[in-house]
């Protein structure tokens, strides 16, 4: 299985005076992402979880080329994205698309949804005829569950769920290989979430698309993803198959995330041993040395601050950046 996308040891730094500036002195910079690697196969879904400020969005923005990377490389189907000329990069962009968190804000209020959905087509296939584009817009709308008769409507006439379907149609019309979903359901009603998530899964099966899904809703992530990556302050903490998340995850941060999910039954919720992490996310300007989770980690030792723990294989497909936590309970028994 060759990887569709490979992110190799990528570091993204931002200047404190706004925007990523490669030349500014180091005290003015912080690393929003440091030494992050991942691989994504075709038809695979990778879920990324982490608190706000953990670098999830920066990672996907680096993948689509919206923020420059300082170190490492991003390889798309065997070709290094940072090395390719703008022309082939545009062709690669055709193969990637993105769905945004706020469905209404990601649609231009002055354009009809037909124009919005057609935009990737017009940019990437300038020779397509108007009738051809109109036909494909109608097809795609129907596929995501929107009536094609609505093409001339404007985004403000739609509900949040419908707007997100428009966003999905726009991401889908260019027949991409990879769709990146940045919190696709966070702004939606719970009742709509399942519809959108299931639609994404169906489309993945139908068109053989790979997905990168960012969310802080663990249940959504577990439902759609094949593998889950846990991030904290720009570092990868743990990466494991999603079926193993509840039983086999063992990084203290992952456990804390799982335990902080409330259970909608007061008696169980009260009886639970609350081991949620305390305190705020440390400042990016002055991150903790060594393992970045030390300041809030329940099992931190003195040595944790010395050097960054390597991401080591703890089981089949299970990578872990913590040498001290208990071995995965699932592995202990089995």
């Amino acid at each position: 299985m060759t990887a569709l996308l490979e992110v190799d040891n990528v570091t993204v730094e931002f200047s404190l005076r706004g925007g990523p500036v490669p030349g500014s002195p180091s005290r003015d910079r912080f690393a929003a992402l440091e030494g992050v690697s991942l691989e994504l196969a075709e038809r695979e879904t990778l879920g990324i979880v982490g608190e706000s400020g953990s670098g999830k969005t920066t990672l996907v923005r680096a993948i689509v080329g919206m923020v420059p990377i300082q170190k490492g490389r991003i390889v798309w189907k065997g070709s290094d994205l940072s090395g390719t000329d703008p022309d082939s990069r545009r062709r690669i962009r055709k193969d990637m698309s993105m769905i945004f968190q706020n469905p209404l804000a990601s649609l231009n209020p002055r354009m009809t949804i037909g124009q919005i959905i057609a935009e990737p087509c017009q940019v990437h296939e300038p020779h397509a005829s108007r009738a051809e584009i109109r036909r494909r817009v109608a097809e795609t709308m129907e596929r995501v569950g929107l009536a094609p008769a609505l093409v001339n409507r404007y985004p403000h006439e739609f509900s949040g769920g419908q707007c997100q379907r428009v966003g999905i149609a726009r991401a889908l019309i260019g027949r991409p290989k990879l769709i990146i979903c940045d919190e696709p359901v966070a702004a939606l009603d719970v009742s709509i979430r399942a519809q959108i998530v299931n639609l994404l899964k169906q489309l993945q099966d139908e068109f053989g698309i790979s997905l990168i899904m960012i969310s802080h809703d663990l249940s959504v992530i577990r439902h759609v993803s094949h593998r889950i990556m846990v991030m904290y302050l720009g570092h990868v903490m743990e990466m494991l198959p999603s079926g193993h998340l509840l039983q086999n995850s063992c990084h203290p941060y992952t456990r804390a995330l799982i335990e902080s999910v409330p259970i909608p039954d007061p008696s169980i919720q009260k009886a639970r041993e609350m081991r949620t992490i305390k305190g705020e996310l440390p400042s990016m300007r002055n991150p903790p040395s060594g393992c970045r989770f030390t300041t809030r980690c329940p099992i931190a030792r003195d040595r944790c601050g010395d050097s960054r723990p390597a991401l080591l294989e703890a089981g089949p497909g299970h990578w872990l950046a913590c040498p001290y936590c208990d071995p995965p309970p699932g592995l202990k028994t089995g």
Partner: protein
Amino acid sequence: MISSRLQPESLPEPEPGRSLWQDARRRIRQNPVAMTSFLALVLIGAFAVLGPLLSDWSSEDINWNVLGNVETAGRPALGSGHYFGTDQLGRDLFVRTAHGVRVSLMVGIIGALIAIVVGTLYGTIAGYVGGRTDNIMMRTVDVIMSIPYMFVLIILLVIFGQSMILLFVGIGLVSWLDMARIVRGQTLSIKNREFVESAVVIGVPPALIILRHILPNLVGVVIVYATLLIPNMIIFESFISFLGLGIQEPNTSLGVLISEGASQMQYGVLWQLGFPLFFFIVIQFGFFFLGDGIRDALDPKDRH
């Protein structure tokens, strides 16, 4: 797989959408102040264009029978054909007022057009490109703004003589500065909205992003500001003309007429001041209320 099972001819008739413009039009129709202002401005525009046809006089003809006895013979009267009376030289004030309104409106609209074209272009580019370009462009605006333009314009008019062209150059120099600042600020906020980000991810070229995603979302602000700018430009021209440096005889503008009327006040010919002033004030209020109405119509959430 999606196949071509859906043929174009089989598509159902698309339902019409309700654009933000249609919403705004509906809201402004329900705003009596704005509609009254609009109607008043339309009537004044019609008067400026068609008024001279209703009179036997032209704006340059002198009624020799009136000359020397303006106070009594030049009174506004329907019988004499001088509906608004005459000025101190015996020229028909009705036609001259129509002429002055025409010139003043032209000055205001040309000033606003320069502001729209130059200011919008300048502001969007500065805001969208950002960084050093933005800094250089906006500091240039600051420098031009810090020059006392009225003083410079008066010197220019004195040195090169009075001319319409120089007046338009002067108006053009100052009118776009505020517009450029406003547009730049708006561009900065629109640039960070998600739909622009999504266009960047799709790979839309920057020029097309400005044209398709930023400009249409700026139009509201630009229209409102331009509507409010027109009366400012009229005041600006009137002030220059009031000082005797703007429009030259026999050409006239509201500023010139008001200036002449004011100088004759003590001779009992108050109509010479009254009629031009009336049109001046109605135009001012008309544009201000219309601009306010457009702003409310475009942004109903912003109303206090």
